[in-house]
């Protein structure tokens, strides 16, 4: 995944080049999404007007960032790590998909265990497990019980 700056000799700042292009793409995608909305209404503004203006400006600015990245010396691309984002975002997604069915009691522990895997050091599974149980219990007492938040605590088969 790591893009080496040396391979992009032509661009002085690969970071800005890529960033600018990304913004242009976001702008184009937004224009595609609003293509069916009216661009102008009877008083000038309609539902599609503001998104279009913002998208065009974003495309223009993205191009400017790209061009400057091409011409001006700047930072290269940083390494993207895989492990951290996968573990962190994976644990959050796990929470999202299981909270309704498994409840906080059965979601918290695996979630904490998954996210702990993001830390690059040696995995201390005993500590992680104890900590996961502790923090889950703490959240269970705090949110649904003490603060009365309507978060499912128990899995559906126990409710």
């Amino acid at each position, binding site marked *: 995944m790591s893009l080496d700056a040396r391979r992009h000799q032509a661009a002085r700042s690969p970071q800005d080049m890529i960033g600018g292009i990304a913004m242009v793409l976001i702008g184009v995608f937004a224009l595609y999404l609003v293509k069916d909305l009216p661009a102008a209404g009877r008083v000038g503004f309609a539902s599609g007007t503001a998104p279009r203006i913002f998208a065009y400006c974003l495309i223009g600015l993205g191009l400017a960032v790209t061009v400057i990245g091409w011409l001006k010396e700047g930072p290269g691309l940083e390494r993207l790590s895989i492990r951290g984002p996968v573990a962190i975002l994976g644990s959050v997604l796990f929470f999202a998909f299981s909270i309704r069915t498994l409840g906080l*009691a059965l979601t918290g522990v695996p979630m904490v265990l998954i996210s702990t895997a993001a830390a690059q050091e040696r995995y201390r599974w005993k500590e992680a497990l*104890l*900590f996961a*149980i*502790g*923090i*889950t*219990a*703490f959240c*269970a*007492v705090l949110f649904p019980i003490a603060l009365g938040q*309507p978060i499912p*605590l*128990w899995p559906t088969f*126990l*409710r």
Partner: protein
Amino acid sequence: MTMTKRQGLTAAAAIGAILALGAGSAQAQYPNKPVTMVVPFAAGGPTDVVARIVGEHMSKTLGQPVIIENVAGAGGTTGITRVAKSAPDGYTIAMGHMGTHGAAPGLYPNIAYNPQTDFAPIGLAAGTPIVIVTRKDLPVKNLQEFIAWAQKNEKTINNANAGSGSVSHITCVLLHEMMKIDPNQIPYRGTGPALTDLVSGKVDYMCDQIVSVSSQVKGDAIKALAIATPARSPSLPDVPTTKEAGLPAFEVSAWNAVFAPKGTPADVVAKLSDALTKAVTDPATKKKLEDLGGVVPDAKGASPEALAALVKSENDRWIPLLKAKVKQ
């Protein structure tokens, strides 16, 4: 935010004990656990207040707390969709509303429920009359003058509403239909900002629920022209009804009613209906609702049958009108 190992262990033991308790509870008579009433709007709004007042009394009859859960979004349809899809066991019910069960199919083509077939109606909780209010310096004294003024100045007048699909929007759509005009409608994000601009005279008039506007009317910040119910309201006794003021066809109310998902057992529906009827006929609860300007139904009006009929007549009234008049 963090705890020591020992605290963690103690807590873990505690949670284990709670788990065991949860698993042990057997299936008993309904209701044996709290009932969740989904309010499809934000806390503090008119529907929320009605739900909380009624829910508090219902929990006395049911012997279990009625917990209010606010699931706002998409004109109330997010929360109602949730209830329509939940288990029909009587533990998840909804405080529906004129918008979600009367008008929504005319506003949202992709709506995921049918107000008439996807629910077991429980009963009507309260009707909230709609009031036509104007800025205080508008040069009209009554509804007749207002209609003449609006028809004459159709191109220059400004009607405020609380956003597309809101009660204030669709009721004024109906009013305009009856006045045969198509004026400029200014949408706001909620009743509050719309009312602010009405008080300062930046817009000319709006239609909204009595509870949202009565104190501003009493404080002379805005003028009320007519109330769209058959009888005058005790909270604004000087305001004539639309019938008295000469527009009898404009009779509309933002009612709130309790619904359970389709397939809820008949005995559960009966228990919920009984609890609701007891709530709305209780003098203290009735007074609370009436103090807010609500029209509280009698035992017959709060029955499941009456609600089913109401939903049907409201659907017949709103869906064709909104499909024709409101562009989606």
